[in-house]
């Protein structure tokens, strides 16, 4: 089921050349909107010995996958291989012998080169990222892998590339949980960050909603009617372990505290809905909100100090922020009369949410300290349930733009909107996991 069981078998990463580890100025992307101008990058097929078909196949599959992942980030445009002036199988791939001008001539400002050698059961990849304008190598890595782990090699190197240009590690070890009703019941499903490898997580034949990943990616908490719900279940992703919350009434929309085995959720056992802090085993630690009426949809700041949530205390649903240290609650959204589904970026600088105006729901982001909302979706059906990639660069969401509700992804600035996959039934409530290194 999980194809990455041998992840650990992946070889030690090896720095190939002396490398300036000093603070890297991330001047490759525009901080104000890194997706406005994409960086043209060339990813020629990796070099391999022509007499080794297995190495040739590994080279071709892995370079294509690398190009696909780089394109997925939204930072790059891929140079057309048909325009290449160099023959990938006969060019020099190390810094000393590279003819940078043959790449800048076709517009490629960055270049990935690679070689593949197979020895016994080990496949060795040497991968490099070059800045063709400054004529220097930015990343050089050697990976040793078994044949079933080429995907992981591509992900590792992509993570290095994204780190070199943006200072964050990307999202290549993340997954997405979502709700699908294709079986006739709303069940929780999981897939990779790019929508591949879709598989079913729950089999309740009931209504299951609002999945949320623990920081280590090992647990998913969700709301289900399997126990005459709506009740929360805290379920291990791979082992047969489940915890429940022993409280009557509504239990809804769990949100794991970053870095802790604790979560927040709305419970109504007191007769009124309030958001509580719970242990990962479902025991109440303490109440967090205290206001009559609806308090729901908690989402944590990355430092776990603050909690954004939805409340109707002012008459209409709006996003509020609760500071767990000062105990103060402040209203965040003021425009419109229906702002729900807050999702705090793992980078901490934005909160995405959905706003309904004239019956149409669209996704916005706002600075947690307040300010003008920034609209990400417009004029394409209803767009709901934003959730951030672990590096805060992408947002997944559900949209009815093609009729049925499906899962889409876009950059944090609303560009590059695309459908993640096609599945029977309708999909909703996506939730992006953190990067999961030891599943």
């Amino acid at each position, binding site marked *: 089921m999980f194809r990455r069981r041998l992840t650990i078998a992946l070889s030690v990463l090896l720095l190939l050349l002396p490398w300036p580890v000093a603070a890297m100025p991330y001047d490759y992307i525009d901080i104000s909107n890194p997706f406005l101008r994409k960086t043209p990058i060339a990813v020629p097929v990796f070099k391999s010995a022509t007499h080794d078909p297995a190495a040739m196949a590994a080279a071709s599959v892995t370079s294509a996958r690398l190009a696909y992942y780089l394109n997925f980030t939204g930072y790059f445009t891929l140079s057309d291989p048909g325009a290449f002036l160099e023959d990938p199988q006969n060019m020099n791939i190390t810094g000393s012998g590279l003819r940078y001008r043959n790449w800048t001539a076709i517009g490629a400002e960055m270049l990935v080169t690679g070689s593949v050698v197979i020895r016994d059961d080990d496949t060795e990849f040497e991968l490099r990222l070059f800045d063709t304008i400054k004529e220097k190598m930015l990343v050089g890595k050697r990976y040793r892998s078994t044949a079933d782990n080429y995907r992981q090699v591509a992900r590792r190197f992509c993570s290095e590339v994204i780190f070199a240009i943006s200072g964050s590690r990307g999202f290549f070890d993340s997954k997405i949980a979502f709700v699908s009703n294709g079986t006739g019941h709303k069940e929780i499903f999981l897939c990779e960050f790019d929508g591949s490898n879709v598989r079913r997580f729950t089999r309740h034949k009931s209504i299951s*909603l609002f999945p949320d990943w623990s920081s280590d990616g090992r647990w998913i908490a969700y709301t289900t009617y399997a126990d*005459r719900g*709506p009740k929360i279940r805290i379920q291990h992703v791979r082992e047969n372990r489940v915890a429940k919350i022993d409280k009557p009434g509504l239990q809804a*929309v769990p949100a794991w505290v970053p870095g802790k085995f604790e979560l927040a959720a709305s419970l*109504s056992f007191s*007769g009124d809905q309030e958001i509580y802090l719970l242990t990962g085993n479902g025991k109440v630690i303490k109440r967090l909100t205290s206001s009559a009426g*609806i308090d729901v949809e908690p989402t944590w700041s990355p430092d776990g100090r603050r909690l954004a949530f*939805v409340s109707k205390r002012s008459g209409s649903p709006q996003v509020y922020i609760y500071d767990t240290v000062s105990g103060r609650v402040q209203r965040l959204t003021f425009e419109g009369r229906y702002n*729900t589904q807050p999702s705090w970026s793992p980078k901490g600088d934005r909160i995405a949410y959905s706003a309904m105006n004239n019956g149409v729901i669209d996704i916005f982001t706002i600075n947690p300290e307040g300010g003008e909302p920034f609209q990400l979706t417009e004029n394409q059906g209803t767009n709901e349930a934003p959730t951030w990639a672990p590096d805060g660069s992408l947002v997944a969401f559900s949209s009815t733009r093609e009729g049925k509700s499906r899962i889409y992804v876009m950059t944090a600035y609303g560009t590059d909107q695309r459908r993640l996959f096609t599945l029977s039934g309708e999909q909703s409530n996506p939730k992006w996991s953190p990067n999961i290194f030891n599943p």
Partner: protein
Amino acid sequence: MMMKRKWIILTMLFVIPAMSLTVSCAKKPVATVPSAAEIAAEEAAAEEAVRQAELEKQREIESQKQLEAERLAAERAEQLKAEAIERDMMMAMNRFLNENVSFEFDNFTLDYQAQELLKQKAVWLRDNPDANVVIEGHCDERGTNAYNLSLGERRAESAKMFLVNLGISDTRLTTISYGEEKPVDMGRDEESWAKNRRAAFVLE
């Protein structure tokens, strides 16, 4: 007829020897021998008795029949009455189960109409003290589903608290929110949405 013939034969048996005796010795008494008239009277009396018995039997049967009819009529009346009561109870229960409390969009307050309906429901709950009830809170499809789950819970709780304030024990009333997950009308207009924004009553 048989009887009649019997009597005639018997009469002949007495009359013929008697006539021969009178001829021989006229002084002999004649009282022991019934005259023909007497015999005819006796015959008629017997016939009358039989007829009377028949009539009596008929009257008895008639009376039995009438009693039976009366009993059946009474029974039917009782049954009809029971059926009417049953029907009324069923109608009351169906009304209780089928008439939903309505709400405005993004709202869980009870308007006049909702309160009047809940008063009727309280009457039914008092008439049916053994009934325990689940109050379901529902929303229309508009808005987002987590918020609607919370809103549905508030709707069910509003209805429950109103009934509790009318004296219905809260141990008989549980609430569950289905948010926007179980619409009764799949339409996408105000008429359908209005039907879906409801607190519904289900027997536990």
